[in-house]
């Protein structure tokens, strides 16, 4: 989908055309869902946040400026929603969090969750390497996590990352370097000795 086509779709959305919006969702849904998934490391929460991002975009499409990129806009929305949810979890553990103890008559016990993820991700989770890498990413600060997701998982260019974050390419370079070095330290054992 080229820019002209996308601009035309956005104009149709502004006139209330839900089918046009559907085309935008189809184009961007995978990236948006995966941003939320890697940020939150939780399938259901990621689905919820990614869907909310599109619904918000639809509601606010009238305010969207045609001189900016829809891709950048929806990325910002989903990153911000993910970050807000993470901050919410930081203030109080989510009710279905693995970390949240279950209150029983015998006192608090640690919850054992059934793996709800569908098969593709379940398969990946079974792989210990994948689990360790995901854990290491989840341990990064939010700003390091988002830049690793954008660059190393989603393959965005430095310029695209700079637009989403709202900074210069120099900042992208230095922040990405720092994030990767931290990640390397976290995964040192796995890299050197395997599993």
């Amino acid at each position, binding site marked *: 989908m080229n820019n002209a086509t996308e601009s035309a779709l956005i104009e149709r959305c502004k006139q209330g055309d839900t089918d046009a919006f559907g085309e935008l969702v189809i184009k961007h849904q995978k990236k948006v869902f995966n941003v939320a998934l890697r940020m939150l490391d939780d399938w259901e929460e990621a689905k919820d946040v990614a*869907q909310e991002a599109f619904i*918000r975009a*639809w509601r*606010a499409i009238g305010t969207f400026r045609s001189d900016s990129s829809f891709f950048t806009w929806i990325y910002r929305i989903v990153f*911000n929603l993910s970050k807000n949810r993470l901050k919410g979890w930081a203030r109080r553990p989510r009710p279905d969090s693995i970390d949240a103890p279950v209150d029983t008559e015998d006192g608090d016990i640690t919850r054992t969750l059934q793996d709800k993820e569908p098969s593709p991700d379940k398969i990946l989770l079974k792989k210990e390497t994948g689990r360790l*890498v995901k854990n290491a990413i989840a341990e990064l600060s939010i700003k390091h996590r988002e830049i690793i997701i954008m660059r190393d998982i989603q393959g965005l260019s430095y310029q695209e990352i700079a637009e989403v974050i709202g900074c210069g390419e120099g900042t992208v*370079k230095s922040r990405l370097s720092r994030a*990767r070095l931290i990640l*390397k330290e976290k*995964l040192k054992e796995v890299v050197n000795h395997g599993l």
Partner: protein
Amino acid sequence: MDCKAAQKLLSSYMDKKVSEKEKDLLELHLRECKTCQEFFEEFKKTISMVESLGEMEVPTDFIEEIEREIKNVPRRKSFAERPLWFRMPVEALGTVLAVVIIFVLGSLFIRGKAPAPGDVSLQKDDKISSRWMPDERVRALPGGAKNLSSTPEQADELYGVVNKIREAYSDMGVSFSEEEADKKQMEREKKAEEKAIVDSFKQPTPPSSWSKTKEAPAKRAGKVTAFQQEPSEIMRRYNITMKVDDLSGGMNELIQQVHSHGGKFITSPETAALAAKTTGKNLMLFNIPKDDYYKFIWNIEKVGSIEKIVPSGGRVFTGDKFVTVELTMEAKK
């Protein structure tokens, strides 16, 4: 090139984002330094492991649920698309808010001061004009103006505040017309609004839970209280209204950043400083264009004397709704 510098460059080198000179120096170092060669190998393996995570397919019912939602909850019409009768109360809101803010700010630094020789004191029977005539400017202050006494300098300052607020709203496209305001309703609700605004200055708004709860839009202009209910549609479209509390050490940086992002102060820095003498707090209200909000936050973070911004009161538009935040800036020690 030493090892530390070389290792810092590896990330950009992998992405071919180094200059020719940096590339040559780094490759030379890598050829000679076994430690860095091993480091680089580990580095590449780490990135490769992250890349191998790949992308998951979206859940099967993902798009259907979005479609159901957007067909049930139609897109909000933009301001310009709304009929005139719907827009009128929003414009009236601008007038109501401006008048109330002027009253509160005026009260902050005038009320309670003993009249000095030469003061201009309003008489009991003075009528309050709804026009902003220069020679009537002190009298033009609403409501409690009857109880105010001020020097000509204070009157000048108040009038300056009036103009700044009017300009700020004018920049947002709000045209002021006192005749359009429902004066009777304004009188009825002014008292409650004043109290709410004064309270919002004195007491920090509780931190937002960033919850998914949808906030009910304000139905009538007169019902709107700053930072407690929905701001005007114009603000919703173009601006984020922020309240900054306790800016010790960061005022100049904030002013610079607000201006560099096309922001407009509702409370002027001068008025904020003046209010600080009375309340002991620096309080500033300003608008930042919505699209520039995150750039603004990041730039503020980069300013040397400000360490961080903690979202905690104020109103920030996050996409389709407002959330309450208060920005507290902490000076670096």
